[in-house]
C-alpha cells in the first residue's frame, strides 16, 4: 500500500516544466555559456574558445551599448507611466458613460488584438514623411512642412512611443475598468455623505481599491515589455544612425547582422535581467497590494 509515487501536483506540472526547460531553459544555459566565448555564426569553432568575461567587459565599456541601455530604460519608464495614466483616465471616463458602454469597451480592446509588428507598420505608414496621414493632414491644413517623423531623433522616439502607447494603454484601461466595476458602492457613498470632495474620494477610496488591478496590468505588461522590439524593428530598425536604438534592436543586429553571437548573447542576458527585474518588482507589489486588501486566497 505504501508505493512511493511522484506527488500528483508534480505530475500535472511536469509537462509544463519539461517544455519550458527544453525550449527556454536549455537554450538560455547555452547562451549563457556562449556569452563567455567569442562565438561567431560564421566560424563554429569559436564556440570552444573560452574568453571569460571578455564579452561583458566589452559591452560594459561600449558607449553604444550604454546609449541603447539608457534609451531602453528611459523608454520603458516614460511609456509605462503614460500608459498607466492614460489607462486610468480612459477607465474613469468609461465608468461614467451611461450608454453604449459595451460597444466602447469592445473598441477599447482593438489595439490589444493588433500584432506589434502590425502596429509598427501602421504607424510607419501614418508617420511617413512623404505620404503619411499626419503630414498630409498638416499640409492640407496649410502648414507647408514635411516633418521627418521617423528620421529626426526626437520625432522618431516620439513616434515609436506613440505607437507603443497606442498598443498597450488598452491593457491598463480595461483592467482598471474591471476594477471599477468590481468596486463596492458603499464606501464611496459613505465618503460622499461624510463630505469628501470628488478628488478626495478618488484619492483615498477609489485609488487604493484599484491598486491591485493596476499591478496586475503592470505585471502583465512587464511580461511583455520586449514587444517594443517588433515596433522599433519595423518602424526605424533602430536607425537612422542608431538614433532609436534600443537594447533589443542592438542585440539582434549584433547577433544576426554581424553574426557575433557570443557578444549578442551577453547583451541578451542584460536584457533578460532587465525584464526579470521589472516582472519581479511588479509581482511583489501585486502580492503586497493583495495582502493589504485581504484578497489573498
Amino acid at each position, binding site marked *: 500500500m505504501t508505493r512511493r509515487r511522484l506527488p500528483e501536483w508534480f505530475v500535472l506540472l511536469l509537462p509544463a516544466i519539461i517544455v519550458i526547460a527544453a525550449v527556454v531553459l536549455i*537554450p538560455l544555459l547555452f547562451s549563457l555559456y556562449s556569452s563567455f566565448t567569442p562565438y561567431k555564426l560564421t566560424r563554429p569553432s569559436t564556440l570552444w574558445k573560452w574568453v571569460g568575461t571578455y564579452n561583458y567587459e566589452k559591452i560594459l565599456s561600449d558607449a553604444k551599448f550604454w546609449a541603447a541601455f539608457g534609451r531602453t530604460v528611459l523608454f520603458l519608464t516614460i511609456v509605462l507611466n503614460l500608459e498607466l495614466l492614460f489607462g486610468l483616465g480612459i477607465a474613469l471616463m468609461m465608468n461614467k458613460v451611461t450608454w453604449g458602454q459595451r460597444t466602447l469597451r469592445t473598441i477599447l480592446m482593438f489595439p490589444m488584438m493588433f500584432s506589434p509588428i502590425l502596429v509598427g507598420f501602421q504607424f510607419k505608414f501614418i508617420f511617413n514623411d512623404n505620404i503619411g496621414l499626419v503630414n498630409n493632414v498638416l499640409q492640407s491644413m496649410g502648414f507647408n512642412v514635411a516633418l521627418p517623423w521617423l528620421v529626426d531623433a526626437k520625432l522618431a522616439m516620439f513616434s515609436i512611443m506613440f505607437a507603443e502607447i497606442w498598443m498597450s494603454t488598452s491593457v491598463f484601461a480595461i483592467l482598471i475598468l474591471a476594477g471599477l466595476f468590481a468596486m463596492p458602492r458603499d464606501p464611496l457613498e459613505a465618503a460622499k455623505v461624510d463630505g469628501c470632495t470628488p478628488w478626495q474620494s478618488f484619492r483615498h477610496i477609489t485609488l487604493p481599491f484599484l491598486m491591485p488591478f493596476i499591478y496586475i496590468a503592470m505585471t502583465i505588461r512587464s*511580461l511583455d515589455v520586449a514587444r517594443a522590439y517588433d515596433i522599433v524593428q519595423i518602424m526605424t530598425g533602430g536607425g537612422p544612425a542608431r538614433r532609436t536604438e534600443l537594447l533589443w534592436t542592438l542585440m539582434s543586429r549584433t547577433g544576426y547582422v554581424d553574426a557575433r553571437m557570443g557578444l549578442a548573447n551577453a547583451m541578451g542576458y542584460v536584457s533578460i535581467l532587465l525584464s526579470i527585474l521589472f516582472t519581479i518588482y511588479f509581482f511583489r507589489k501585486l502580492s503586497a497590494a493583495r495582502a493589504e486588501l485581504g484578497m489573498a486566497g
Partner: protein
Amino acid sequence: MDRNQSHRNRRRVLKTLHFTALFLTMMIICIPGLWIVLNSFRPTVEIMAKPPVWVPSFTLDHYRAMFAGAGEGGVPVFSYFRNSLIVSVTSTLIAILIGMSGGYAFARYRFKGKNGYFVGLMLFRAVPGVALSLPLFIVFAKVGIIDTHFGLILAYVAMNVPFTIWLTDGFFRQIPKELHEAAEIDGCTRWQAFWQVEFPVARSGVASAAIFAFLTSWNEFALASQLTRSVGSKTMPVGLLDFTAEFTINWGGMCALAVLMIVPALILTFIVQKHLIAGLTFGGVKG
C-alpha cells in the same frame, strides 16, 4: 439659488469635457486601424499622390494581387496564412492542454514552494523573444528543426504555457472544490471528475485562455523572424516584411495583408471578450 445655478453650470461644462475627451480617445484608437483598411482598397497611385487625395476611390487590386499568389514577384500570402493558421492552432491546443494541467495543479493542490514555482514559471515568459531567439536559433539549427512548423510550434507552446497557467489557475480557483468532491462521491475518478464537471464549468474561461494563446502565436514576430526562412514556414507577421524592398514599400499590399491578419483576431476577441476580462482580473486578484 445662486449656488445651485453655479453647480448646475459646472456640471454641464464637465459633461461636455467628458464627452469631448472620450470622443477624441476613441478617434485615436480607431483611426489608425481604419486608415489601414481604407488604404487597402485604394489604388497605389492615389496612396502616393502629392498633394494628397482626400476623396478615396475603390479598388480590389491589392487583394487580387495578394491572392493571386507567388507569381510575378508577388507575396505568397496563401502559404503564409496557412502557416500562421497551422502553427497558431496547433501550438494553442498543446499549450492549453499543458497549461490547464499546470493551472489545475496550482489551483487544487497545496505544496511547498507553490508561489516560488508560480513566479518562476512567469519569469520564463518574461524572457524577451529577441534574446531567446539567438540561442534558440543555434539550438534549433543543430537539432535540424529550424524553418519547420514543428520548431515554431514548440517555441510557441513554451512561450504560451506560463500565461495559460496563470489564467486557468484563476478559472479553476473560481470553482468550489466541493464540486469535484461531490463528483468523486457520485462515483467519478479524479480524472472523470475533471472532465465531467470541472472542465465543463470552466469551459468559457479555458476558451478565453486559448484565445490569448492563439493571438500571441498569431501575432508573434521576434521568434518567427529568426526561426523561419522559407515560404513553407514563414508566418504572416514575417511575411509582412516581404512588401518592403530596399527603398520602396508596397503600401497597398501591406495594408491588404494587415487586414487579413487582423480580421481573425478581431472575430475571436469579439466572441469571448467578456470572459477575457473576467479571467485576467480574477486570475490576478485572487491569485
